[in-house]
């Protein structure tokens, strides 16, 4: 176990460069816009759009030819003077909300947005109900008859264990007798 841990730690210097290297993108140099501000906006937009081929990647990450086409389209629209919103709408018009990695809040995505919160609320409510019912059981007061019976049992107990030499033992045997007592 420890030798394995030491060996793993020895690997760390080798892994470090990989961890420190900035993330690599699929964007190739010839795609870049000459205007850095526009290029920055293009990158931001690209990271919000899903590649429809490799569906869990953004078009910024994906090497798929279609993602490249979409990146070029985003840049083309930006260069033509579109706002960020307009560019995204342009793509959504053609590929649907599916391309948005952050889907908009609307009736058919309501469950998606509210679901986790609803689960949390149900969980908290359930725990609350559990706590309340448990406490109620704990504090339920004894009836008079029960009090009387309890006192009777305790007296009986005390009388029986009195002759025992040590207090610790008396408590133990007390517990035992209580169980066996009819």
């Amino acid at each position, binding site marked *: 176990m420890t030798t394995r841990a030491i060996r793993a730690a020895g690997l760390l210097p080798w892994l470090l460069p990989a961890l420190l290297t900035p993330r690599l993108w699929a964007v190739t140099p010839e795609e870049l816009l000459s205007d850095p501000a526009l290029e920055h906006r293009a990158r931001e937009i690209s990271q919000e759009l899903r590649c429809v081929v490799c*569906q869990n990647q953004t078009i910024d990450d994906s090497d798929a030819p*279609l993602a490249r*086409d979409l990146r070029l389209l985003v840049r083309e629209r930006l260069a033509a003077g579109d706002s960020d919103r307009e560019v995204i709408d342009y793509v959504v018009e*053609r*590929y*649907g909300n599916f391309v948005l990695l952050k889907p908009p809040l609307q009736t058919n995505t309501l469950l998606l947005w509210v679901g986790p919160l609803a689960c949390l609320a*149900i969980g908290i409510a*359930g725990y609350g109900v559990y706590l309340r019912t448990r406490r109620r059981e704990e504090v339920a007061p004894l009836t008079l008859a029960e009090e009387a019976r309890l006192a009777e049992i305790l007296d009986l107990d005390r009388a029986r264990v009195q002759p025992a030499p040590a207090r610790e033992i008396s408590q133990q045997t007390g517990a035992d007798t209580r169980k066996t007592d009819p």
Partner: protein
Amino acid sequence: MNRLLAAVPVIGLLGLAAMLGVGLTQDPQKLPSTLIGQTVPPFDLPPIAPDIPALAHTAFQGQVSLLNVFGSWCTSCLVEHPVLLSLARRGAVPIYGLDWKDEPGAGAAWLARHGNPYTAVGDDASGRVALDLGVTGAPETYVIDAAGIIRHKQIGPITDTVWRETLEPLVTRLRANSS
């Protein structure tokens, strides 16, 4: 009351399982097209070869037709190619081709080798028209009515079954509507 409450998580879990189960049966690659019910986006593409007519959006007026997205690089296009050829031979429906992201001459060579089912073919070398159509891969086929409105998108190869069970009834119905 308590017993009813205890059943709530079980029912919730079963509901979730059912929902996810249904989700598993669906192919995430098959995106519903947002262009259904809309007119074909305007485009005017060059031909892929001098002897094959070029394609523009105006071709889709006045008749029910298919627009088939293909490429010489696309292996599953070969699967549907015999079906398209047979449809063209029978004169079942005019088929227009969109040669998607092909090297110059590659599409024409591919058609010369395998046969040409297309009435006209547009050379979409940059893939720009395909983006406007919301193409996600090849082959994809759009059924377009006589008014030039996209009515259906077939994702994946057209097999005999797909034609017989989905596309042919639709084409027949669209023809009946337009006449």
